[in-house]
């Protein structure tokens, strides 16, 4: 029997506390880019869970920095555990934008960022710059990807800095138009590597 030890700031060897609220937003996996062509979360691989364990999954995209300038950050899903990424998507996309010089503040629908029954990658953020301090961060919510009854809804709030030194706040939303389970997701830039950055996957507990 091991002995529980108490030190200054922690209690080691404690693995459970029956009455403690462990919270319902469960961290599943963190991927860190390092000159990566893409980052993939695949159900059943590398401790990733993307099945009916959770009804809602949340991706937190934190400071993904592109190797190339003026490119888009995008994602797609897979129904064959990552063998291919090309699920049919219909989506909408709008954006608020404002330049560092105060120019061209606007809110508008972005026709280049939506999809209509397309298997292409879904744009999350566009015109992202590759200056050392430029990046994209976002939250992407995917609802019930394992459903075999309904299409699979998603929505995102994406914040980035454009190569032209503008703040872009983009809102893509849509659905994977399939009744097959979506069991993998892939993130990449439209051109060039993800030089650095982190994507975290969380599941919202069902009970």
């Amino acid at each position, binding site marked *: *029997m*091991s002995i*529980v030890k*108490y030190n200054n700031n922690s*209690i080691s*060897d*404690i*693995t*459970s*506390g*029956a*009455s*403690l*609220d*462990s*919270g*319902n*937003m469960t961290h599943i996996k963190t991927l860190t880019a390092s000159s990566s062509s893409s980052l993939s979360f695949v159900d059943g691989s590398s401790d990733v869970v993307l099945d009916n364990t959770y*009804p*809602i999954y949340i991706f937190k995209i934190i400071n993904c920095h592109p190797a190339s300038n003026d490119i888009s950050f995008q994602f797609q899903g897979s129904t064959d555990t990552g063998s291919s990424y090309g699920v049919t998507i*219909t*989506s*909408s*996309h*709008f954006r608020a934008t404002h330049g560092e010089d105060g120019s061209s503040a606007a*809110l*508008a*629908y972005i*026709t280049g960022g*939506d*999809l*209509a*029954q397309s298997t292409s990658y879904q744009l999350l953020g566009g015109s992202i710059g590759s200056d050392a301090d430029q990046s994209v961060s976002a939250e992407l*919510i995917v*609802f*019930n990807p394992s*459903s075999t*009854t*309904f*299409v699979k*809804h*998603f*929505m995102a709030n994406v914040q980035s800095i454009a190569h032209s030194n503008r703040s872009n706040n983009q*809102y893509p*939303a*849509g*659905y994977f*138009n399939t*009744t097959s389970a979506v069991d993998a997701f892939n993130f990449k830039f439209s051109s060039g590597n993800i030089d650095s950055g982190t994507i975290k996957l969380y599941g*919202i*507990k*069902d*009970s």
Partner: protein
Amino acid sequence: MSLNFANNNSLSAIDTKPSGLSGGALTLLSTQTASSSASISFTSGIDSTYKEYQFHYTDIHPANDDAYFQFNMSADSGSNYNVAKTSTFFRAFHTQTGGTSALGYLTDDDLAQGTGFQRLIEYGYNDATSSSSGILYLFDPSSTTFVKHFTAQTTYRRSYSSESHASAVIHVGGYGNTTSAIDAVQFKFASGNIDAGTIKMYGVS
């Protein structure tokens, strides 16, 4: 005073984490699953325990076509759902054919001191694979000082007359214009049942 003991690998009789420990931002309080339900109501658990509550609705499927999913709040434990609300409502959509897209404010769907239900979607489609999913955020419902702010984002598949289907997303923001505590929330379609779907209520710590 009872004593708390540590045994081999667990803590017994400890039910509160030290404030310096992180984790557990979302606490599931209630789950309700619709099955041809006229409405879904949360009449307990909304109090001063949390400053923010979230309602996660997943794959809400209407019995009727062109459905308006909506919600209201109660200040009397669910006896009446009729809190006065002032709100905004805007949406983006894109048809599956790619023929139509739009972003706009919808004056028919906001409220100005209205006590009726606040719409969360418009023209929800009811074919077998269509549904609505989203999150309603309700802030500090137990306050007896401030109005009760809420926001919601809902993504869904809507009907569109000439092009059948469209992806749509609705953004709603507003407040219940009352200083009474809100202690119940109800969801329903403007007409027809909630054929299927799940709504989970979380407290945010």
